[in-house]
């Protein structure tokens, strides 16, 4: 599954978006959904089922952790109702996994650009 070594498999879209959302700070589930929608300009929308299914896996892999309720490191809660929610944070391993995935995607983009460039010059 999600391992700590450098040869870890690519992350799924949902996982990548969740880690990316949490990279900006601690969030509760609904906050993650809104952040993912904002980051993708509304093109990618997570449902609560998909979100918590992925969060469960990420927590068990040690990439995401629960924020203790009394934590003062917190939480930009907009209302008292949100204050009661369960918040999540990115762990050190989570940050490393996200960085590795971004590097991998960067490599893919670089290769893709090179191939497209070759195709253009070959056609011309």
């Amino acid at each position, binding site marked *: 599954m999600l391992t700590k070594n450098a040869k870890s498999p690519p992350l799924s879209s949902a996982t990548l978006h969740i880690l990316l959302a949490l990279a900006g700070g601690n969030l509760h*589930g*609904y906050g993650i959904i809104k952040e993912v929608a904002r980051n993708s300009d509304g093109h990618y*929308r997570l*449902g*609560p089922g998909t979100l918590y*299914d992925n969060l*469960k896996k990420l927590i068990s892999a040690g990439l995401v952790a629960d924020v203790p309720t009394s934590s003062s490191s917190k939480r930009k809660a907009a209302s008292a109702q949100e204050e009661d*929610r369960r918040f999540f944070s990115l762990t050190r391993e989570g940050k490393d996994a996200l960085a590795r995935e971004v590097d991998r995607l960067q490599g893919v983009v670089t290769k893709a650009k090179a191939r497209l460039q070759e195709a253009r010059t070959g056609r011309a």
Partner: protein
Amino acid sequence: MNRAVSRLVYRLILRLHPTSFREEFGAEMLWIFEQEQQPGATVHLFLDGALSLLRQRFTSQNGTGQLSIASGVMITAPGIGPVRFLQAAIALSLLCLGLMLLRVPNPLNASVTWADRMPCYTVTLQAPSHAEVVLHSTP
């Protein structure tokens, strides 16, 4: 669909999830459902809930069973008994219901559809002691 009915259906979907998952995330999922509940988004939330149910039942329980959707065949392993089979059937039914709702956003408004299709007639249903259908023809 009425908000209270939608909430009830979603609670039913949550109820079918494994107990551990429901106890850990059920309240949060229901809260998000209430926040996100809008006329266009409800079907998406139902589908998401039904897919989550399938995932939790068939992929997260130590690989005790497999569901081959591609071949359309359910492969039963020793871990899948009649109860799980029934749960899967309910989950698939909810999925079908979601798809049906996707095509007909509000099935309770059937009379509107009827009137749209046959604008020259007005159909009145009266019910106290017996059902009576009155057709008014307009030129």
